[in-house]
Every structure is written in structure tokens, then in C-alpha cells.
């Protein structure tokens, strides 16, 4: 191993031993889980969901949880050359020795890495080719709301919040006799656990036109609809997270101050699948912060939430934290567009580098279509407050390719950015900076735009060109249409797409999210080889009565609600946040999940 580590870049990725990492002895009758993230260490270590599960599982006797990340290509080459199977960081045991290998699937461009990791581990890729000798290969995370493109490779998916369902699963496995238990019987039993989706227990049929005709259970244990698991109260935030040596992507202590968001932006999957809103109390947050900082020595604390300014006690939380921890940097992701957020940021940021806001669309009409309840006035007042209080840099996030979008809306982006810039000039002169980041909409399952065709590159490119031209003097970044196509096709794919993923991996695709590894031509070839058309999945406008490949996986909100939101978007009708009083009947209340 030494010989290998000396040759690879960033060997610290593969050695473990970080503060708060947990190395347990492997005793008899323990259930062992490898928690895997299909990207490099620096990215995988930043995944909050896996941190929560690592903590929760290792707290229990009789359970061992260890980590594994995708080796970079130099390490992969060495492992293959030496015939060393992929191993965990804690005990350096081969993944094949574990009872479960659990992947976090947060989005689609990491799918091929799953296959590569299984292959490196010597585990058969196809669930159908695995048996009682192999680990159960499972997945959770937001990409599982359409699990179909990966259905061939996983024994089961955990849909929704994982904190309880993972323990249910471990108990079931233990009860069934652990390793060596009959795989088919085990999976059928697992299917009875709420939130567990066993894809092999469903048959998918297709219509002449290539759409899904029906998804039907083939075993009595499999329920026609799998509804996501929701934990009633927020489980405690881990207070002894691993402190990486390496500079990882999110290199800071994190407290989830709130889960869920009910603002109802219509492009946003997260705003749909993490409902209801559950706040952590100020007292708990302050206590947790004390413990976290004492256990990690972190210099930065992030208050994680989909909409940080929406926490009802955020002002007091931030004030107290800043007072108690004078040298601590506090970061507030996802600030709302208002002067309150600016005041909040001012109370903690010593160095006024930059503030980021997301108006998402350039005109009021289009912002109403996407239900982003923000006006131009809101944005300009916010800019006024920010530049006025000493910030010199504002970053604005927009999207193009939104339904009903016209050139006028794109011009609106330029108009807004310039107005913000002139506010900045007035306060800060030439120091004032605006940067604009424009993403292309990737319609995601369970969002009200799940039926929408993604805009084709032929019309996206001219919009990007126009913005490039018109935004001179403003920093501008955009998304490459090719990787948007792949992500869009995969995110709304059906089960047949598993063959495409397999084929693409066989032809060398991996690290698809890394620009130096992107192989759009190879992917097109893979689609072609398997007789599928990516445009069918990415660009096609679906009708509301089409059976969608993920209809049997329910995010908790009803299809009726999502369809209603889609129809309202066409009318440009706003749906107010239900916290302001009026229930928008998303379906969560019927689930008994509380809201």
C-alpha cells in the first residue's frame, strides 16, 4: 500500500485516521455497513446525509459503519494493477466483506462512479447477479426519487429521510440471519418496511410511443406506491463529526437548523421532497454549536437550511453565536432577498466579501411563473442595503430555459444585473462588483416542472451568447448544454436507461461531473447502442396524464398538488408559502407527517 500511496496525488484521500473517525473492531454478529459516496473524498466528505448516518449507526453496539469514496483515476489504476479491491477507510477491508454497501445518490452525474466502485470492489454490478454471498447494495438520497435509471444495480433504495429506515433495515437483516440469508426472501421482507423500494419486485411495461405503460408489483410484499419516510422531529445534529485533514469542499462544522422549505418554487425538487418544515430550537442550536466547536475545533460554522433567513429565531441565534464565539466564522447559505438578510449577514461577517442572492428569473412575469415571490423592488432594496453597508460584491443566480420564457425575460436578467450594478456604483464607486451565474433548468422529478421539456441547446446557446455580449463588465458564468442534457435525460429516465449507464461505464465514462472527464460523444453512443434517444427523455414535453417512470415513488406531496402547481405556473399564479396562513394542500398533512 505504501508503494502505491507514494505514487498517487493527494494520498491523504485514502488513509483515514481523521479526528472523530470511528474504527471499531470487527466482532462476531455485527452488521457492517460501508457508507459510500460516488465521488472523490473531498466531495464525499462534504455530504451531510452520510455524516448523519455514520454518527447514528456507529453509536449503536453491534453495528459498524465505515466510509469509502471514489478513488481518483491515478489511484484506480494502481489498485487495478496491484489487484487490490476497493477498501474502506477505517479498517481498510474490502467492500465485499461488508453486509451493506450504501451509496448516497445526490444527483445523476455520479451514476457511472457507482458502477466503477462496485467493479473495483469485485462486486457484481447487476443486482440480479448478486446473491447471499454479496453485500446488499443500497442507496438513498435525492436522486432516488427517480430510482429507475439505477434500478438494475441496486438491491433496494431507501426513499426519504434515512435516519429511521436504515435502522429498520439493519434489524430486519439481523433477524433474517445476516450474511447468507436467502436474498430473495430478504428483499421481499424488506419491501414491507415503509420507504423501502425493491425494484426487482416490480415489472415495468411500455407503450408503443415509448412511454411507461404500467409499473406493477410482482410480489404481495411490494406496495404499488412507496411513500418516502419522514422523521417527525429533527434528530440531533451530529456533534462529533469527522474533522478531515484535507481541505474538503465544505470544510466547516454544520448544524442543520431547519429541514424542509414551503416557499414552493416550482423548479425546485428540494422544496418539494424535504417537506414539512421542521425547525430546530434556538436553545438546541446554541447547545449543539458549543459541543460541535469543542469536539472539532472548527473555525467556521454553517447554519444549514434550504432557506436560512426563514428560521423564526434566526436573528437571536446568529447574535448569540457571534457573541459566544468571537473568532468563529458563521456562514449562512441560501439567504432570502431582503434587507433583513443583509442585516443578518452584517451581524456576523467580519470580512464583507460578497453576498449571494437568487432572483432566478429576469422579469416579474417569469418569477411569478416559477413562484419565486420576489420583486425587482425587493432585489434593488436588498442591493441598496448590501452596498450601503459596505459589501462590494453581489452574486446573482438566474436560470434560463424556464417554461414560457421569451427573449424579454432573458433581457430582464441583463436589466436587473445592470440596475444592481448601478446601485453598487452609487455606494462603492468602481469597487462595486456584480457577478451573474446562469444555470439551465433541468426539470426534476417531483417538482411541478417534471412534465416540462428541457430547452434544446439550439435555443439555449443564443441566449447564453446574448448574455455574454450584454453583460460586459459583469462577471458571467453559465452551464455547458452537453452536461445539462445528460443530467436531464438521466434524471427523468426510465428503467431501460440502466443499460445505457452500464454501456457508458463500459466505454470508459466516469466522473461525469468533472469537466476533464466529460465524454458527451460516448454517452450519445451508449444511448444509441441501447436504442434509446436522450432527447426523448430530456427535451420532450410530457402530458399530464402520462405515466411517469417515478410515479410509484412518492415524495409525500401528491401528484394532484404538483399538477395543480404546474397549471398555476402556466397562468402565472402565485401560491403563497403555507406558513403565511393558507394551506396549499400539498398532501403532507394527509400523511400524518404534520406541518
Amino acid at each position, binding site marked *: 500500500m505504501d508503494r502505491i500511496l507514494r505514487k498517487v496525488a493527494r494520498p491523504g484521500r485514502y488513509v483515514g485516521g481523521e479526528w472523530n473517525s470511528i474504527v471499531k473492531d470487527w466482532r462476531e454478529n455485527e452488521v457492517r455497513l460501508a457508507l459510500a459516496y460516488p465521488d472523490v473524498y473531498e466531495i464525499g466528505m462534504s455530504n451531510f446525509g452520510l455524516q448523519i448516518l455514520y454518527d447514528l449507526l456507529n453509536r449503536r453496539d453491534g453495528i459498524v459503519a465505515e466510509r469509502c469514496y471514489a478513488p481518483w483515476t491515478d489511484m484506480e489504476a494502481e489498485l487495478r494493477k496491484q489487484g487490490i479491491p476497493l477498501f474502506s477507510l477505517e479498517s481498510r477491508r474490502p467492500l465485499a466483506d461488508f453486509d451493506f454497501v450504501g451509496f448516497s445518490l445526490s444527483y445523476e452525474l455520479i451514476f457511472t462512479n457507482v458502477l466503477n466502485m462496485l467493479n473495483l470492489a469485485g462486486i457484481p454490478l447487476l443486482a440480479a447477479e448478486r446473491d447471499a454471498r454479496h453485500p446488499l447494495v443500497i442507496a438513498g438520497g435525492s436522486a432516488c426519487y427517480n430510482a429507475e435509471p439505477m434500478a438494475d444495480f441496486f438491491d433496494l433504495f431507501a426513499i426519504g429521510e434515512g435516519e429511521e429506515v436504515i435502522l429498520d433495515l439493519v434489524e430486519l437483516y439481523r433477524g433474517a440471519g445476516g450474511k447468507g440469508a436467502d436474498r430473495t426472501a430478504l428483499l421481499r421482507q424488506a419491501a414491507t418496511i415503509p420507504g423501502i423500494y425493491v425494484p426487482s419486485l416490480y415489472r415495468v411495461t411500455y407503450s408503443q410511443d415509448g412511454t411507461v405503460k404500467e409499473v406493477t408489483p410482482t410480489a404481495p410484499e411490494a406496495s404499488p406506491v412507496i411513500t418516502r419516510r419522514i422523521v417527525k422531529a429533527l434528530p440531533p445534529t451530529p456533534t462529533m463529526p469527522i474533522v478531515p485533514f484535507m481541505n474538503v469542499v465544505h470544510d466547516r462544522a454544520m448544524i442543520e437548523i431547519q429541514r424542509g422549505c414551503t416557499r414552493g418554487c416550482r423548479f425546485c425538487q428540494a422544496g418539494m421532497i424535504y417537506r414539512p418544515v421542521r425547525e430546530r430550537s434556538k436553545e438546541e442550536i446554541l447547545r449543539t454549536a458549543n459541543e460541535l466547536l469543542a469536539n472539532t*475545533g472548527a473555525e467556521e460554522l454553517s447554519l444549514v437550511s434550504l432557506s436560512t433567513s426563514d428560521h423564526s429565531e434566526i436573528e437571536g441565534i446568529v447574535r448569540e453565536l457571534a457573541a459566544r464565539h468571537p473568532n468563529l466564522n458563521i456562514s449562512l447559505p441560501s439567504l432570502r432577498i431582503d434587507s433583513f438578510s443583509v442585516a443578518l449577514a452584517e451581524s456576523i461577517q467580519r470580512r464583507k466579501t460578497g453576498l449571494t442572492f437568487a432572483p432566478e428569473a429576469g422579469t416579474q412575469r417569469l418569477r411569478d411563473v416559477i413562484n419565486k415571490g420576489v420583486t425587482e423592488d425587493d432585489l434593488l432594496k436588498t442591493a441598496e442595503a448590501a452596498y450601503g453597508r459596505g459589501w462590494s460584491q453581489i452574486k446573482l443566480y438566474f436560470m434560463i430555459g424556464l417554461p414560457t420564457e421569451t427573449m424579454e425575460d432573458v433581457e430582464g436578467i441583463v436589466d436587473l444585473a445592470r440596475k444592481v450594478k448601478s446601485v453598487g456604483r452609487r455606494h462603492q464607486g468602481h469597487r462595486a462588483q456584480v457577478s451573474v451565474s446562469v444555470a439551465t433548468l433541468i426539470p426534476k422529478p417531483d417538482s411541478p416542472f417534471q412534465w416540462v421539456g428541457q430547452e434544446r441547446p439550439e435555443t439555449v446557446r443564443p441566449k447564453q451568447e446574448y448574455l455574454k455580449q450584454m453583460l460586459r463588465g459583469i462577471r458571467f458564468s453559465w452551464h455547458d448544454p452537453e452536461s445539462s442534457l445528460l443530467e436531464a435525460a438521466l434524471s427523468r429516465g426510465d428503467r431501460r436507461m440502466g443499460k445505457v449507464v452500464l454501456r457508458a461505464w463500459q466505454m470508459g465514462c466516469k466522473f461525469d461531473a468533472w469537466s476533464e472527464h466529460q465524454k458527451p460523444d460516448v454517452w450519445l453512443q451508449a444511448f444509441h447502442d441501447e436504442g434509446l434517444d436522450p432527447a426523448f427523455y430530456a427535451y420532450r414535453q410530457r402530458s399530464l396524464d402520462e405515466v411517469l417512470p417515478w410515479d410509484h415513488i412518492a415524495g409525500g406531496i401528491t401528484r394532484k398538488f404538483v399538477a395543480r402547481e404546474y397549471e398555476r405556473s402556466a397562468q402565472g399564479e402565485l401560491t403563497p408559502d403555507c406558513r403565511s396562513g393558507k394551506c396549499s394542500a400539498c398532501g403532507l398533512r394527509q400523511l400524518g407527517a404534520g406541518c
Partner: protein
Amino acid sequence: MKRLRITFSKGEELKYISHLDLMRAWERLLRRAGVPLAYSKGFNPHPKVSVAAPLPIGVSGEAELMDVFVEGEETPARIREMMEPQLPRGLRVVDVREVSAEAPSLQSELRFSDYEVDLATPLSREAVESRVKALLAASSIERERQRDREVRRYDLRPLIDDIWIAEWNGGQKLAMRLRADVGGAGRPDEVLAALGLEEYVKRIRRTGLVLEERG
């Protein structure tokens, strides 16, 4: 404000952790330990911690030196006690003592690094000795080093103070003293490559740092 000089070892377990990563780990462990760190002034205050010389990746260190500025009245012994329970596997504190806050920086006082290399080679002692002799006799040793995207050419010879065989039959050990000052630092792996021994290297450790003797 006091200045503490900490002697520590970075073991085999940590030898793949880079210098910058180790610095961050030190800052975090000092904060966990509740050591009252002195912070720099300015918009972005950071603790005043400095290490004498970075260790190359893959090399362990037995007596590394680091200066830390602290506030408060705690004695060096007490600070050491506070640090102990926070040390990750592979990191050990060897000594903590107070030095004058006005003294020159560690980096400016550093002169040499001593290394010891475990070899596993079929070559005879005499063969290795003659390679060492030839290398030391050379007036210049041109080497190339990949740095990011650039290839840098430099002369290794002035960076070598001495190389000798520390032990042979009880275990093949080569020792070297390499220059390490503001003018440049020799890398043990480069010396081993120049000796044509790189494929026989089992382990490299830095056994000590030599500071300038001050009267």
C-alpha cells in the same frame, strides 16, 4: 502574549497528510484543547502558528518544530497537558517550552534537516558507499522537478551537506544532512533519485532540524 516552541513527531500514520493540512489540523486541535491562542489583527484574524519547515509528503518526522503564540498565564507544561487528549493518531508532543517572543522566526533560524532512510537493496554496502562518494564529489548535480505545470531545473549539490551510511548489517540505513534555509531546501527523495536508490526506499524520516546556534 507568549511564544511557545513545540517539538512534535509526525508518525507513519500521518505521513501522507500534507504540510498545509497538518497546519490546519494543529490549529483545530489547539482550539479543541482550549489553548488560548493569540490571533493576528485584521479583518480575518487567524491564530499565529508557524512550523519550521514543511515535511515532504510520505516522510515522517521525529522532532519537528513549531511556534505558537498564546495569551494567558498557563505554563508550557499545562498547555502540553491540554493538548495531549486532542492529538490524532500519529501526532505526538515531545516537548513544549517558552522562547522569547522577540526571537527571530523558526524559518529564519533553520539551517539543516537531518534525514534517515531505511533501504531494502541487494546492492552491497561498498556499492552504495561509492555512489555516495561520487555524488558528494560532484561539483554540481543537475536535477529537474515537476512543479504544477512547469519543469524546474536546479542544482541539487549545494543543498547537500553530507550523506553517510548510518547502519548496514543490522538494517540498511542511509543518513543525510540537507540544507534547509531561506536560500533553499534539499529534498531527500531527490537525493535518493540522484543516487539511483529510489526503488529501494522503504521509509524516510526526518530525525531532526538544526537551528542556527546563537551566542
